[in-house]
């Protein structure tokens, strides 16, 4: 089983979730109000009121095969809007 960590701008959350659903994920978990720094942008909490929002951190636990579908669907979004995605091993408790 795999664990996928996606971190990207909150404003793209709907698009990302739609894309995850299209990949038939068994479920996902979303943490909003996340801040951080990538190679280019610094995202800080104080911009939330402007509507720019902070980052969202989405975790998906899924099988390898689902991950393949996610990769195909999510990669274009990430490369267009920015954001990162990392995979690690996991297993059910």
């Amino acid at each position, binding site marked *: 089983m795999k664990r996928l960590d996606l971190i990207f701008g909150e404003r793209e959350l709907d698009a990302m979730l739609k894309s995850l659903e299209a990949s038939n994920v068994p479920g996902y978990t979303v943490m909003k109000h996340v801040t951080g720094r990538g190679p280019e942008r610094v995202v800080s909490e104080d911009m939330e009121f402007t509507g720019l929002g902070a980052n969202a951190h989405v975790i998906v636990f899924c099988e390898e095969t689902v991950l393949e579908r996610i990769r195909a669907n999510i990669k274009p979004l990430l490369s*267009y809007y920015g954001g990162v995605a990392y995979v690690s091993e996991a297993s059910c408790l």
Partner: protein
Amino acid sequence: MEPSLILQNVLTPPVLFFFLGVIAVFVRSDLEIPAPLPKLFSLYLLLAIGFRGGTELQLSGLNGQVIPSITAAILMSLVIPLICFIILRIKFDVFNSAAIAAAYGSISAVTFITAESFLDNQNIPFDGYMVAPLALMESPAIIVGLLLVKLLAPNNRPRASKIKWRKILHEATLNGSAYLLMGSLLIGFLTASTNPDTLQKMEPFTGKLFYGAECFFLLDMGIVAAQRLPSLKRAGSFLILFAIAMPLVNAILGVLVAKAIQLDEGNALLFVVLCASASYLAVPAAMRMTVPEAKSSYYISTTLGLTFPFNIIFGIPLYMSLVNKVIPNFG
């Protein structure tokens, strides 16, 4: 005259609280107003000015200066982004130019509010219906910005991001802050028409509380503005110059138009402030979604980090004396 006006402006609670926030960042105090409290005040202010504007619009009716003001305002929010775009193209690509241009064509509600407080303080009358132009200047500027991208962006833009008409109109009219402002305006208008008795029940919330809540929010705006300065420095001197000079240019355009449509002193100042101010709410939110190629730090650090403080502190009194010079006062 201006120095004393500036001083009078600076010594009011809203501007002083703004300074308190700015200084907090400079002296590295750990004062912070955690999210989503700024959002609470931002929503509240939009709801309150919208509602009050709507009631006053109903009371004054659609005659007199209302229609000319609104028409001129919409026109300005179409023209100003074009001017800005041409200037910005000297240094920036289409995406960044369009996004910044849209921000300067649009308005800042808090700058407008501070200008109202300034007029109050100077005992200069103004009309509440000026909130209508405020509410109506956000959408056209966004539309112009997105159109510029749609028409002028290089062809190799990835397909997924081709902006569609639907999306342009959606972002322009339905993003949260524009929607709340317009909606509250409408509700205020409807309430004043059909249920004038309930207006006084809203008054403690939308009226009495307003000035204090404005101060609290400006405290946060001070913190936020000062925190934008480092990324402003990185944006380069052209943008820094733009963020100061453009409001002045827009203010001059604004005062000429205000004279042409014969606005009174007070309304003229508000009109000029609408022209000179730049958006850090609706426009950035819309641009982030539709033009991700533009660097958000550019349009945010200029509007929030420089233009907003400049307008709040120096701009408003400066524009006031400009209005006084250009528009004869029959007080």
